[in-house]
């Protein structure tokens, strides 16, 4: 089960992910991301405070946008990751490529 809430706060888009991301619903995340990009978002914040689990397919979604974001100067930051989920990002090495912060404020700064 994955629930995605989208909202705009001061020019930045906030995606709140709740539940689990696996191979079956990673397409939903992908659809949400591409929709946000199409809407011309320049700053995307991803609130993972409610995210319990992410599989490699879910990581693949974030990964696939990295190049595009760099080219179009879109900033993406993930915040409030649970320790267990952060470990998944860390082991893969994605924390070296994606800004991962503890809070929303830190994410906005950085």
């Amino acid at each position, binding site marked *: 089960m994955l629930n995605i809430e989208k909202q705009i706060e001061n020019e930045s888009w906030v995606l709140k992910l709740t539940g689990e991301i*696996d*191979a079956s619903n990673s397409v939903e995340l*992908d659809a949400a991301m591409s929709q946000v990009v199409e809407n011309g978002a320049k700053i995307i914040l991803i609130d993972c405070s409610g995210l319990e*689990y992410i*599989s*490699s*397919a879910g*990581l*693949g*979604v974030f*990964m*696939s946008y*990295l*190049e595009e974001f760099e080219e179009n100067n879109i900033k993406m930051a993930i915040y409030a990751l649970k320790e*267990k989920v952060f470990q*998944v990002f860390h*082991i*893969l*090495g*994605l924390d*070296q*490529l994606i800004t991962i912060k503890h809070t929303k404020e830190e994410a906005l700064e950085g």
Partner: protein
Amino acid sequence: MLKIPTPNIGKVSILVAILTWLALLFVDITRIFQSVNQMENTLAPEISYILEILFFILVYIFYNHSINKNENIDFLNLIWRGVSTGLLASFITLAINIFYRMLGESKLGSDPLLNNFFYHVNFAFLTLFLVSCSLLWKHLILYQKTKKVVQQWQAFEVLMLMSMFFVFFNGNNLDYSFLFGLVFLTIFSASLSINLKWIPYLTFKEKWKSILFLVIILICTTYLFSGMLSYSDSDITFLNLTDNLFLLGLFAFVFIYTLFSFLVTLFNLPTSSVFEQKLVEAINFQRLSQSIKPGQDESQVLDILIDSSMSASYADGGWLEILDKDQIPQLIQKRFIDEDIRQEIITLFQTIKPFSEFEWTLDDNDARKFYGKIPHNIYKSAFLIPLVVNKKTIGRMYLVKEVRDGFNKEMINIITTFVGQASISVENYRLLNEAIKTERYKEELKIAQRVQRSLLPKELHHNEKFEICGFSVAADEVGGDYYETKNLEEGVFAIIIGDVSGKGTSAAFNMSQMKGIFHSLVQLNPSPGEFLYKANTALSQCLERNHFITTSYFLLDTVQQSIRYSRAGHCPTLFYDHSENKAEYLSADGLGLGIVRNTNYRNYIHESEFSYEKEDVLVLYTDGIIEATNKKGEEFGYNNLKTTLVKYKHLSADKIQKEIINHVYQFVGEGGIPDDDFSIMVIKFNS
């Protein structure tokens, strides 16, 4: 024992009937002979009456038997039997009349004995005709019988039986009691004669034939009746057998039923086409509801659909379109309409309501019907109905008529039912095809599984200085985990473990690519870092944008007792250090393959080296082990893996592996299914 052959009721009854008739004739002739010769009359009329009743009953038994024998005779044949008997009886009466007319006033013409003989012949055939005809009508009356009708008929038979004996009470005088009996029988016959359920089942042609037959029977009956009356009017010297309540009652019954049948059939003629139509519709409905047999296809059902719909609505033209794979309507069936005119009408439909309101994508199309006038010089009204399967519109059918307002509620209802049934048949057919396809995919997947199994090594390279074993299980039929070894030079081994992102078939394809890359690169004897860099470059060309592979690559040198390794986003390797009696995860930085697809990847590669000693254990695994989840939603986790290894460190490599796998399964619990592919390799150093 003596065998008595079972008597043939038909033959016996007709034989006895003939004998009875002869006896009756003999009695009457004797009586006339006595009266002519003015002798004393020794024979009471009751003897004749008894013989007469006996004759009636025998004829009844004979016909009852002979008609019941041919139970499944059709209506027309039944009526024809009545016609043939009637014609025979009439012909004989006519012949006797002509014979007497020819005799004229001659002596023979007034001979009472001869007259009496012919009278008896007449009487016999009249009885045959009336009894047989009544029994035939009985079959018609009791067609689709109800209990009430059967009881009514039985009462009628009892009444008729009683009327035979009426002669004993009043001696065939036309008094009030006789008249009363006759009127009563006539009314009863009339009430029986409303049972005409057989008529609607005749086709139009059969109705015409039966009308002809019924007219013949009516004429015969009238003729025979008038012939009979002429006997009672004439001053006959012999005993009157025919002024009998039974015979007159039968006359009334046969005549009334024939008349009713004739009239009802006649008035049913104009509506018979409607009844036939309904029958055809019922049959069409049944044909539509039979699922499509193997080897047939949808078009056969659609063929029946358009034909039935057109005949149900008397449409002058029609066609049917079905959406193809690309959602483009394709003309499947076309009836009685030129292509040019069809195109004209299609153009009209796009502008005229309600037809222009049709949309393929609406999900309530199954409740929609479109009908109305169209401004066309040939076709004045049209009807459009969508074919809907599972809320999805798969096609549409058009019907056009040359008259205005040509489609009424009944037609639309029946066509809607046809369309619904045909849609169900088409859906069943499609589901069946899909099931067959799925079955084939399953077979293909089994083959893929076999092929993929063979991609994982059966034997792992090693020497006497270490033990090694590996195990892998996929969550689906095929998986994305990979491990392999290679003996590079004396005492040096390359060991790799990898995990492709995602699972299932796509993961399996990428896993086989990884194997290819490993076997190509390992020949160059690269350092672990160099291996990762080259593998990343190669995979960047072939992995989909959102896929990546994690891997750990080890160079094990058994001479130096050292291990050099690099980690590309793969789960950290677990190492048990015997000298410190401690297990730790080897943490080296790294990034999965295929995430950064340019030369920058080099910045994320780190190489580490460490030495090992005897009794040390190395455990390589994929995240399926760490993420194995029990019913409470807890993961097996890194700690469990570590403590399990420490607990069983003293065992041999394959036993350690077995224990770890057992612990994972025990943790997941009974009936737990691995949600992800999981693999494990255990290396234990002997020296």
